[in-house]
């Protein structure tokens, strides 16, 4: 074991993961927490739920569209600057929500400012950043980041709900905004660096460099695959980008539709909303464990096989909703679906990084995420129409199952061994590098 690493503790990249875990935790908490305040806004503004919902609807679209933009900025300026600017803007936006006096102001402050800024703190820049810090353990690092969102639902949402019982909604939003500026911002500024090279380190905490295919010497992370690119447009001339985007579109279709229509489906089956919520809570708990497991395993085998399996397992969950009786289907879906719910996130971003490299990963991840959001938005409407037309979700669930089967096959058909840099030939380690301790590396970021 390297002496320098023993002296300076764990690989610094794990502190970066922890910092991004916290930013994901707090940002997703604010985004999901919107629902907690709907009734308060209805009373204070004297409007219907629909009027308040406009802010959420705008926010969803703005957040989706902002992803490629922040992805491109990540590639141009470095993820650290994007994340810090995002946290600053989101903190200010969150405080401005507290000052809202009408649905229109809420639509502007939450729908535009907060939702736009949250795009800068999404998986797009964070995933691109972690792809630079981790290569061999990329899947594990991404999965920890993803779990930040799950944990947020378990801690931030109850926190907001209880806080609202003891204070006005303005006080709650003001407090959250201040927390973002006082806690979230320093964590990003002090800890996060755009790449390990900024601290004179190598990805994964490696202390050895390798010969690359071109006769030069490189860290394992920069060993290029055949599709590694410096221009994001080039990625669309190859199959994996389309395969990943198409499959992730299906992910958006199937998760957003279930998220929106699960309770309504449960009601149509004679299941109470409380029981449906409990099942969904079980799904969330299983999904947190599933994400960590899948992320960790994906570092030891081809990621596309796991990604394909995740889609197929989710397809099985959709089939269970059709063929099993309501009460049984509810729990079957929670358990089977839970294993696959968020597992696509670390696998898709990691695989994109493995195939196309990290140079333009921000833009690529942003585009893939946009496909996810657009698929989700469309599916919510289509599933609703199907239920209104037929009085049942069976046809929509069958469609979802077919899409998931196709997504599974698509993911499995990715030629990972041919295109992924993980499987690109590299020669043995020869050069000692990156043993500089953290403090000696300096604190400058980008």
């Amino acid at each position: 074991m390297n002496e320098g690493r023993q002296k300076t503790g764990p690989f610094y990249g794990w502190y970066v993961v922890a910092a991004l875990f916290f930013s994901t935790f707090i940002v997703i908490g604010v985004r999901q927490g919107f629902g907690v305040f709907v009734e308060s806004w209805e009373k204070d503004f004297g409007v219907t739920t629909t009027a308040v919902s406009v802010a959420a609807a705008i926010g969803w679209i703005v957040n989706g569209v902002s992803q490629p933009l922040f992805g491109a900025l990540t590639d141009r300026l470095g993820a650290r600057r994007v994340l810090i600017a995002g946290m600053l803007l989101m903190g200010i936006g969150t405080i401005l929500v507290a000052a809202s006096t009408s649905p229109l102001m809420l639509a502007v402050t939450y729908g535009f400012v907060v939702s736009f800024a949250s795009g800068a703190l999404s998986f797009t820049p964070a995933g691109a950043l972690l792809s630079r810090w981790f290569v061999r353990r990329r899947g594990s690092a991404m999965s920890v980041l993803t779990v930040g969102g799950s944990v947020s639902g378990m801690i931030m949402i109850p926190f907001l709900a209880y806080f609202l019982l003891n204070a006005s909604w303005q006080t709650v939003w003001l407090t959250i905004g201040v927390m973002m500026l006082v806690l979230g911002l320093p964590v990003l500024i002090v800890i996060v660096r755009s790449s390990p090279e900024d601290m004179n380190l190598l990805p994964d905490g490696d202390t050895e460099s390798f010969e690359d295919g071109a006769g030069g010497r490189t860290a394992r992370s920069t060993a290029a695959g055949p599709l590694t690119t410096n221009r994001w447009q080039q990625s669309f001339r190859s199959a994996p980008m389309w395969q990943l985007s198409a499959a992730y579109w299906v992910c958006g279709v199937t998760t957003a539709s279930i998220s929106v229509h699960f309770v309504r489906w449960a009601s149509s089956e004679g299941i109470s909303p409380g029981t449906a919520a409990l099942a969904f809570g079980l799904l969330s708990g299983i999904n947190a464990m599933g994400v960590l497991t899948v992320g960790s395993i994906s570092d030891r085998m081809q990621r596309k096989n796991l990604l394909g399996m995740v889609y197929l397992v989710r397809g099985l969950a959709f089939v269970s909703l059709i063929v099993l009786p309501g009460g049984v289907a509810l729990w079957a879906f929670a358990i089977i679906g839970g294993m696959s719910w968020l597992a696509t996130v670390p696998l898709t971003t990691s695989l994109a990084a493995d195939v196309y490299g990290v140079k333009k990963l921000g833009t690529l991840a942003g585009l893939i995420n946009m496909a996810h959001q657009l698929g989700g938005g469309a599916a919510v409407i289509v599933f609703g129409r199907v239920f209104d037309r037929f009085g049942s979700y069976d046809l929509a669930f069958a469609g979802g199952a077919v899409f998931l089967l196709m997504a599974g096959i698509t993911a499995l058909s990715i030629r990972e061994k041919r295109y992924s840099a993980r499987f690109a030939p590299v020669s043995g380690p020869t050069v000692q590098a990156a043993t500089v301790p953290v403090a000696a590396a300096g604190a400058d970021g980008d």
Partner: protein
Amino acid sequence: MSAFNRVLAHHTEPVDPKLVDWLRHKIDDLLGVDSVVMVAALGAVIVLFPVVLLTLVWIQRRRGSRYS
């Protein structure tokens, strides 16, 4: 209610207020503690995480500078 507010917990979509309310009552039944205590406990978890993290990084950097 708009479909957008029924969205539960995938990625960043808002949670359903009715489900949050149900969850809160369930927690109350289970733990039976005052809501102020819940705010303090959950708030402490949220605040302590970054504080502990920053402290650990500070310690690691101090160790690093000692050995450099």
